[in-house]
């Protein structure tokens, strides 16, 4: 039984992107049950060097056999400096995953190289060219400095993620509560992603028993403006969703903006005021729509927009 996935949506909600070892059938057979927006089936670090083939094999069959429903399925492929990445791409495209996470991206050329291989694979397997999305994981100071060109390297690319493990090693720092050691990278990547109009995701938080530390980091992510976060354990999903959920006040305000915009747009008015006298123009609308979308995804939206 083969379940073709619908064409991936480039700018969907990606609050939570959970890593899963592609080699473990018990994990990937139903990774969607935990409710992450995206799962990232990992062919890279989680898989031992001599197990890459078997991981690809189980990944391909999972992609072909399992109905992941609304959960986005991304595959983290091996680095461009390894002998594995090309075959990884063929398997991902043949299996029909939604997208690829490029590990250790340092330049626009890395993205372009993967893009070309993906196009080739799409042609090889009769997949619509351009269907497969890309995201780039930035894991080094060089990658951070090249962030803007990475973000604009391919029309397939929906976002970038900062990856803390390798970055901290390069910077000769360790994990610091409060995240001062990652501040420059996070900030720079966010600015680049926003400038390029793509999404931006924060790194994993690996101490799964430190709920308080995790919450503090997610809070900072939200305040800095990240779209979502890479996760290592299903237990972290609900916490992120809960913390990203808009408040009733935010929802009410967003509803007013969207409603007023729709009314005025029909009359051809571009600037208007809403209840309370606040001046609104079209620039406010995407943000308001995002709030409604988040509220719906969080299961707390009761309105009819």
């Amino acid at each position: 039984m083969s379940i073709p996935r619908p064409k991936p949506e480039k700018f969907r909600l990606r609050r939570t992107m959970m890593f899963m070892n592609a080699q473990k059938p018990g994990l990937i057979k139903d990774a969607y049950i935990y409710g992450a927006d995206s799962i990232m089936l990992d062919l890279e670090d989680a898989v031992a060097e001599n197990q890459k083939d078997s991981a690809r094999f189980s990944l391909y069959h999972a992609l072909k056999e399992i109905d992941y429903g609304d959960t986005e399925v991304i595959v983290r492929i091996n680095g461009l400096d390894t002998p594995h990445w090309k075959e990884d791409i063929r398997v991902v495209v043949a299996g029909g995953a939604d997208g690829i996470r490029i590990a250790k991206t340092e330049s626009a050329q890395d993205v372009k190289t993967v893009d070309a291989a993906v196009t080739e694979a799409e042609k090889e397997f009769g997949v619509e060219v351009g269907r497969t999305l890309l995201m780039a994981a930035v894991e080094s100071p060089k990658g951070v400095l090249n962030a803007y060109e990475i973000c604009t390297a391919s029309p397939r690319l929906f976002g970038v993620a900062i990856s803390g493990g390798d970055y901290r090693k390069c910077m000769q720092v360790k994990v610091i509560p409060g995240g001062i050691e990652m501040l420059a990278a996070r900030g720079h990547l966010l600015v680049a992603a926003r400038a390029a109009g793509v999404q931006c995701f924060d790194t994993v938080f690996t101490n799964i028993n430190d709920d308080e530390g995790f919450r503090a980091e997610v809070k900072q992510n939200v305040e800095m403006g990240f779209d979502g976060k890479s996760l290592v354990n299903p237990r972290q999903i609900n916490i992120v969703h809960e913390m990203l959920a808009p408040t009733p006040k935010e929802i009410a305000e967003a509803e007013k903006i969207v409603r007023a915009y729709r009314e005025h747009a029909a009359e051809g008015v571009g600037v208007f005021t809403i209840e309370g006298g606040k001046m609104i123009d079209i620039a406010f609308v995407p943000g308001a729509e995002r709030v409604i979308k988040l509220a719906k995804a969080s299961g707390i939206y009761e309105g009819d927009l």
Partner: protein
Amino acid sequence: MKNAVGREIPEELLNSGLRNGKGYEVYQGKGYRDGKYIKKQGPTTKIYQKPSESKILPSIREAVIKSGLKDGMTVSFHHHFRDGDYIVNMVMKEIVDLGIKDITIAASSLGSAHDPIADYIEQGIVTGIQTSGIRGRMGDVVSHGKLKTPAILRSHGGRVRAVEEGDVHIDVAFIGAPTCDEYGNARALGGKSDCGVLSYAVPDSEYADKVVVITDTLVPYPNFPASIHGINVDYVVKVDEIGNPKKIASAAARMTQNPRDLMMAENVAKIMTSTPWFKDGFSFQTGAGGPSLAVNRFLEPLMVERGIKMAWAIGGITGPICELQRKGLVGKIIDVQDFDVAAIEDIRTNPNHYEMTASEYANPANKGAFVNKLDFVVLAALEVDIDFNVNVITGSDGVLRGAPGGHPDTAEGAKCCIIVTPLTRGRMATICEKVVTVTTPGDCVDVVVTDYGLSVNPKRQDIIECLDKAGIKHVPIKELQEKAYSMVGKPDDLQWKDKVVAILEARDGTILDVVREIKPYEM
């Protein structure tokens, strides 16, 4: 004859005399016998008017002889020593060595510690088994038709009712006790093999003609407060060891780290909070299994957030509920069994942790047991079907390997009964079209929580409304079953012979289901 859960019960069973000579009815539905009257059937007991110093006998063999145990009689045991129990095997060996035969064992439960009983069944010495649990080799030989009469399987509450109503008459009760004095006052604390409480042995001590307490720790008279009272005890025997302490009380029950179990537990807690019963003073019971036990962990923050406390918790007790009590979130713990060392340690020292009898816990035929006042119970299951019937006794191969325990009692009694189970186990669908054996009827089951979503019994529109209001998504149970079958396939029907090997009694003593002799699987 079809009963209220649609199970075909053979007519000949109804008047077979298996219910101590009385006729059986088939299951008629939840609360069928409510308001009816019964006459309790008391024991024939011996008068001990003359003062005497001691009831101590030198050996179990001597006690078996003195008790007057003869061919065709019924002996009873309790299961507080769980897998560490030595009592059943020690006593049965003496009975068999004395050449006594045609024995019925009426235990509160039997487990894998009792494999030797399987030999006595095969040899035709043990001809009747009445129990809650049946597992290991015993389950195997019974399922293969080796027991002379059908085993009678009851819930913990149903057993007390059966004893009191005279459906089973216990000739001699053998009660293992961690401590006992010379006059038979017995406790579950203060010995080498403490089990916390002796709740399940209390009806035996009150309704058996002869009562023998077996201990490895004699203590000075009076051993008070006593669980088993000397006024009901004929003889006391001291042996070297009544059990293996390591297997009686497992190491402190640990919370699962399995994300699947935790997710299900979290959902159970959320369901609870969406109902009107989750308010200050609520009552609660949960099982000791992974996801059930983990519900405690998720309740804590929700109780704190709402500023409410649990008035009381009952059941098989484990460390985590005691811990919740130490944090001031539980008023009283009322204990019928202890599952781990932490619970035993707690009842030893905590004045708000009480022992109750099996009748107080779950008997449907007394004037109102604890289960009747339970708000929530969270239970596990081997299988649940699309009519919400639960099986906790037969495996996917049709062989007896479980125990109804308090499942049917708490399910019927509680205002909200939540079953938590993964949708599949290995290649088996847990949510299925028709359970192998009905052990808890679907009319007592309210919500089923799986890792793939949850479902509410359509009989409980009130709970459906609560979940809808709270935005908790639920699906018809048929959808869960179809999802399960789409993943692991529809199992072939089991193949049975005609012979009934076990009767599943509902807690009110009607027949809920039967288990037949298993036929070796043929393609």
